[in-house]
């Protein structure tokens, strides 16, 4: 990310008076750089895969493409220890509650990479009865990697894209140092169909409206 002098003045800590000639506060920007440099070089992914894309993710994780070169070789089996969730594959409705729960359990800063057409937008199963068209309907996605499946090199390009995003963030504005806790995403409920609790009122209103309309026509008939 290229920075203009205005960006630097945003980074200045208002509690410390800085003489005008030193306005491009070196201390805080350097801290940002060290902070982001260390974060971007140790992004640990969560060890989980959903469908065929996972096979390609496994191929990427092996020695041939070796993500250890990016400090990413440690796939953690626990969401508490990882920074990156690679949603690799078809997101079935049955899997969504688990994915959202894992996302909630990950410690911030956390990132999500949607790998492949299925995880990004539904892909070949877009209108399937049992498939969610895109994990971004439920959790925020940082990087989308198109392809079915993305080749290992395409996935590595996705990792590099993510590193660029991490390097563009500033310790002053990142949400995880703001006051208060971040809101957990309500875990969807899998009944006869998948229900997103955030849309509960909408669903209720719609179903009530439908029912009353139906009753009215019945009475009129």
């Amino acid at each position, binding site marked *: 990310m290229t920075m203009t002098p205005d960006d630097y003045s945003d980074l200045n800590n208002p509690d410390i008076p800085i003489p005008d000639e030193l306005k491009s506060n070196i201390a805080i920007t350097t801290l940002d750089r060290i902070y982001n440099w260390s974060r971007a070089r140790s992004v640990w992914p969560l060890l989980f895969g959903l469908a065929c894309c996972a096979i390609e993710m496994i191929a990427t994780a092996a*020695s*041939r*493409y*070796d993500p250890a*070169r990016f400090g990413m070789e440690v796939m953690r089996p626990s969401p508490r220890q990882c920074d990156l969730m690679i949603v690799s594959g078809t997101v079935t409705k049955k899997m969504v509650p688990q994915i959202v729960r894992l996302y909630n359990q990950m410690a911030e800063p956390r990132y999500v990479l949607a790998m492949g*057409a299925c995880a*990004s*937008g*539904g*892909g*070949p*199963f*877009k209108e399937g009865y049992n498939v969610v068209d*895109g994990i*971004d309907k439920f959790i925020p*996605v*940082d*990087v*989308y*990697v*198109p*392809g*079915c499946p*993305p*080749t290992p*090199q*395409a996935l*590595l*390009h*996705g990792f*590099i*894209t993510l590193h660029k*995003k991490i390097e563009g963030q500033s310790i002053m504005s990142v949400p995880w140092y703001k006051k208060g806790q971040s809101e957990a995403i309500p875990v969807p409920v899998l009944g006869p169909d998948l229900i997103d609790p955030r849309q509960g009122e909408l669903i209720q209103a719609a179903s009530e409206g439908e029912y009353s309309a139906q009753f009215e026509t019945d009475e009129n008939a």
Partner: protein
Amino acid sequence: MYGLGIIKGLGVTLKHLVETYVDDFRWGVRRYTTDDGFVARQSTDTRGIFTVQYPEEKLAVPERFRYIPFLVVYDDDHPDHPGEIWCTSCGICTKVCPPQCIWIMRGKHPETGRPIPDPEYFYIDIDICMNCGLCAEYCPFDAIKMDHDYEIASYDRTTAHIFDKAKLSKPLSYWQKIAPSRALEEHLARETK
């Protein structure tokens, strides 16, 4: 005897390990610093196991490699039709596309209002495209082809990953470059038609 398979497997791994270093001695640093070394390392008859140092060195993709489709247009220096798109907006690709990720609208003649063989809009949602290549297979005008560019990850789906006509259009010379033998084959087939 139990366990024989495991010992054989370990033997294969050991062989790869030894071969990697044996070939290193034969080539020396040339293996990692020269183009010849890279080609030899990534070829199918190489011995030993190597890491592709991805952003610095990239594996050559085969000619029939498929990623996202692109639309063929004439080069800007073409004598008769500079920059003209090959697509006639017949809509066959939209019908065969299994996940239905192509969306096109036929253009209209500005005066008469009659349809013309030129798409006004042509969108492909590359986050739905399954890289099957059916569009390229079925297009009767050779106007849509499969691209080799896989470095298209980005941060936003709606702005960056819905490719429009301008983003999809690539010159014919690009297709001839990435798939020389197929481009020639198609050219000859068109000539003899």
